[in-house]
């Protein structure tokens, strides 16, 4: 039997690897072009050999992208955008995760009256495209006096993250044994004590999964940052767009490539570093 099967299995394996290699090449090729181009000088780029390795690798384009590139009138690179993005991302990651965990905990363990109903509404909200809500939100934030400010954009991120964060934690907590909650009640634990001392420490895998989702989501956001952050707090993505669309003279491909890579570096790093945790988080949900 083993002998008969061997050739077929081999062919199947070969097919799988061929497909995987093609897929990897397809997705990695643009990255390769971006990387090589970013290390080339404009003279070399003009030769038009986009697949060639840089003849004289230089970091000039990277330096320029970080601190000299012009966005409209100012020429300070995209570093300002980087720090703006950090300032937006940190509260927009921490607050939704904590609130989502709290929501999920309350819904699945305390089962408040009308909780399921509220959760249903929250889920419906998740399916409405954000474009529909932008104008009302602008009016609302303007009325609250936080439009075009850091709190303004953080609030928007918080609101839009609530359905998925709540769903994530609610399902995770619903999978924990109900007797755990009962034991904690008998031991005298109240709402907050059970949450902080028992539930949060058990949530590590989900906290990491949620953090990954929020970091990538918030960092990659463009439309919300453009609309709600205001000029002073424009995130990196918005600045990147400005850099690339500012056309005075020739188009600096090497600088554009470097700026794009810098902008996408954070989510990329998060995936590379947390890949193991990401898988663990998903697996932890499956096995106890």
């Amino acid at each position: 039997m083993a002998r008969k099967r061997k050739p077929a299995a081999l062919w199947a394996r070969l097919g799988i690897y061929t497909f995987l290699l093609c897929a990897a090449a397809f997705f990695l090729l643009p990255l390769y072009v971006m990387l090589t181009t970013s290390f080339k000088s404009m003279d070399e780029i003009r030769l038009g050999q986009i697949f060639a390795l840089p003849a004289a690798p230089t970091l000039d384009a990277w330096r320029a992208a970080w601190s000299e590139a012009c966005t409209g009138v100012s020429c300070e690179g995209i570093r300002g955008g980087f720090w703006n993005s950090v300032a937006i991302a940190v509260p927009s990651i921490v607050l939704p995760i904590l609130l989502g965990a709290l929501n999920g905990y309350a819904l699945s363990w305390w089962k408040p009256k009308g909780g399921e109903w509220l959760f249903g509404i929250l889920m419906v909200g998740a399916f409405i495209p954000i474009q529909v809500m932008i104008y009302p939100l602008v009016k609302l934030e303007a009325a609250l006096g936080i439009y075009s400010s850091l709190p303004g954009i953080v609030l928007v991120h918080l609101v839009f993250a609530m359905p998925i964060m709540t769903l994530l934690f609610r399902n995770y907590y619903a999978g924990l044994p109900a007797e755990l909650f009962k034991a904690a009640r008998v031991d005298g634990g109240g709402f907050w004590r059970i949450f902080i001392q028992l539930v949060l420490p058990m949530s590590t895998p989900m906290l990491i999964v949620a953090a990954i989702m929020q970091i990538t989501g918030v960092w990659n956001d463009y439309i919300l940052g453009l609309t709600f952050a205001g000029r002073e707090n424009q995130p990196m993505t918005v600045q990147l767009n400005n850099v690339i669309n500012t056309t005075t003279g020739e188009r600096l491909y090497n600088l554009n490539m470097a700026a794009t890579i810098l902008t996408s570096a954070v989510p990329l790093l998060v995936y590379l570093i947390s890949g193991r945790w990401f898988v663990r988080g998903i697996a932890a949900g499956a096995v106890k």
Partner: protein
Amino acid sequence: MSGVNIQGLSIKFGHNEVIKNLDLQVIEGEFLVLLGPSGCGKSTLLHSIAGLIDVSAGRIHIGGQDMTDAEPAARGIGMVFQSYALYPTMTVEKNMSFGLRVAGTPKAEIARRVAKAAEMLQLNALLDRKPAQLSGGQRQRVAIGRALVREAGVFLFDEPLSNLDAKLRAELRRELKLLHQTLGSTMVYVTHDQVEAMTLASRIVVMKSGVIQQIGTPAEVYERPVNLFVAGFLGAPAINLVPATVGADGQSLDGPLPLRLAAGRVAPGQRLVLGVRPEHVRLQADGRWRATVQLVEPMGNHQVVWMTLGEQGFSALVHDGRRIAAGEELAFDVDEPLLSVFDAASEQRLPVS
């Protein structure tokens, strides 16, 4: 130590009434076992004593105080769950002391109580471990320890041994009984395992569909079941239930076991069910009736002989090593005074002897 007094308790889940107008007295210091098939409401009853389920009607007094609406922690109870329900991120020591820390007990007192419970349950070497590093038996010991440190008046056990393998279950069962003898605390214990009920209980409460069928000592419940349900639920192998019809004289019975009952207890023509425990069936050469052997199960110290009596399955216990072959026809007799007689229509026990 305190008793529990339950009056007129009703519990509804939606329109489904799980507990129906139930009265129950748990006497101080007794080991009360709630026994019944799954879905009979025994766990619901226990959880309502713990305050983990809202009651629809009725009152629950613990230690003389009305605790119907009190928070679980305020009721003076300790509870052990089937799934152990240990806090996975805390060490054994933290697991046991959690409740005391919540209550703000002084550190020295916490240490004293944890040490005492650990001593009693042989957990000293495990205090720094996490639950994941413990075996099933150790986990359940920790769960018991967590209940003990509360030094509560009433301990509640919700099928605490069901998740353990047979050997450990027997071991922990004995430990629990010893613990009860040492502490003398009131214990309420839920199980569907009649062996646990028989071995542990001072009194057994047999429940079915949210209604108490019988309360009594293990011997009372086993020997004098009040109805067919209780008779059938207790005992392994199960009690033999043989149909009979009362003859015209009101004494002689018609059926596979034609006995005579005392006069005046049953009416002519009344349909009965005779309950005969397998150990009350004597296989002896001068027996009055005969049955055909279908199957023999040797159990080491005894044998279970499965026979057919007319159309009826019929089992007997044999306590010696005699050789019995399938297909053999054996004479047998029954211990008539130990018989239970039930009315076939009402399924209730009849006082015939």
